[in-house]
């Protein structure tokens, strides 16, 4: 907020514009701030929904509050996924929706690259079960106390490589389809 004030002094016309952009009062932020007063939350304006950054240590407690609190009732977990920010770690992203109140909230948790563990949201919503399994196998995130920590989409033995990390190579189609599938007939040998 301090940076905004600096801008305020410089140009009057820009002031109103930037103030509108950066003030979150027109969003549900005041409400969320009140509900999550016990948690360290950093808000951010998203294109549609409000985005909140919550530290890893508080996340499950914060989600539980968001679900149970009378004023918000985020009873519906829309989506749970992760974003690989390479050197900045991995963001776990929760998209919450409150059916009674018709409000949306995006919750983000940043995990450092060398310690990708987080509590499981299945304690809050059952819906998180498969979504977390998918996120775990795709990004190598460990969800502590997950009730069913098997792989979901990947083969059971594919636990050493995580396809959606940016470091995972985007294999050339030739490699995947293999030389023996007809692209290279000379090397096909007598297998036919």
């Amino acid at each position: 907020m301090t940076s905004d004030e600096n801008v305020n002094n410089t140009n009057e016309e820009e002031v109103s514009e930037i103030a509108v952009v950066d003030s979150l009062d027109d969003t549900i932020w005041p409400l969320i701030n009140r509900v999550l007063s016990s948690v360290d939350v950093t808000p951010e304006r998203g294109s549609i929904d409000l985005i909140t950054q919550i530290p890893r240590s508080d996340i499950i407690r914060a989600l539980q509050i968001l679900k149970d609190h009378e004023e918000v009732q985020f009873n519906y977990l829309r989506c749970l996924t992760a974003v690989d920010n390479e050197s900045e770690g991995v963001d776990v992203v929760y998209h919450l929706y409150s059916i009674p109140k018709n409000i949306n909230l995006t919750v983000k948790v940043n995990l450092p690259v060398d310690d990708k563990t987080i509590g499981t949201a299945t304690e809050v919503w059952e819906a998180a079960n498969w979504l977390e399994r998918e996120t775990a196998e795709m990004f190598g995130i460990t969800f502590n106390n997950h009730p069913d920590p098997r792989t979901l989409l990947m083969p059971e033995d594919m636990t050493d490589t995580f396809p959606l990390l940016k470091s995972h190579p985007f294999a050339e189609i030739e490699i995947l389809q293999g030389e023996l599938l007809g692209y290279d007939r000379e090397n096909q040998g007598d297998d036919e």
Partner: protein
Amino acid sequence: MVIESAPDFETQDLLINVGPQHPSTHGVFRMILEVDGEIVKDLIPHIGYLHRGAEKLCENNDFRQGVGYMDRTEYLASHNAELSYVMAVEALAELEVPERAQWIRMILCELNRLSSHFMFLGAFGVDVGVFGTPFIYAWREREALIDLFEEISGDRMMYAYFRAGGLAWEVPGNFEERVREVLVSTRQGMKDFDNLLTRNEIFLARTKNVGIISAEDAIELGMSGPTLRASGVSLDIRKSEPYMYYDQIDFEVPIGTNGDVFDRYIVRLKEMEQSVSIIEQCLERLNDGPIMPERMPRMLRLPEGQEVYIRTEAPRGEYGIYLVSKGGNKPWRLKVRSACLSNLQALKKMSVGQYVADAIIILGSIDIVLSEVDR
């Protein structure tokens, strides 16, 4: 030989592996049923046979190329899948979509909902045990719809017709009359299904009070779409968070009462009637105009550090696209929120304690498309 007394008589649960090659798993879904006689005691679903990494592929393709991959994640309702994707790109690029393009999109999405629901009715009818008839009825109507899509976009299933900003090209001149023509046959098809199944005693006996899931459980499990609404939750994104011009359209959201298989069937059938009425209203408001924004960059680049989660009401529920941009012409991260994946999670809860034959129709009533589940 002495016959043992009854209490020592040991029974063993039978494990049956249903799928991935099974006539009624709707693709390559596999579930392991633990049955005691005919009663399902446990159910372990296995998915991932159709995983193609659409999300990873999209991260390596620009925004025009990505549309084609979206088709393939939801091949029964490709227009709806494309819609979420292009809307996400438009939201980040702050593109204003021309009015005509929006109306055409709405018409196509609702038509696609019809064709997808027809597919459900057909496949579900076969799951319940009618020999092929519902399937052919469904295909008869779906064929008319698909022919229309082909006349518009050129392809029967993988349309690749929506573009960020509007549409790829203008609809043919006789678009309106063709849509009206198709709606006539669609009505006939819906009537045929209604007559064939809705009041059939055997159908009722099979579907009523089977696979019940309560509203609380359905919400808790993240179900969406008709499967959720059958449980009595009136959650339709077209109503709750209207996108495109759904707020200007007058339609109703059918909801069920029991949350059983029959409700999931009837909710879809009623929803189709609503879709027909939506299309008719859209046709009335369709006017001439451009189909792409006037100032459209040749190569679309998104601002850095932006993200959006777009959700639309696809035939099977909430089809969400989570798009993270770090600049450039490719998404940094693209997540497809699949309605079927979340709905499928509820399968175990619905099936345990039911008969083996019920487990099959419960699976059918969720209306899964495995390409959307696995992506």
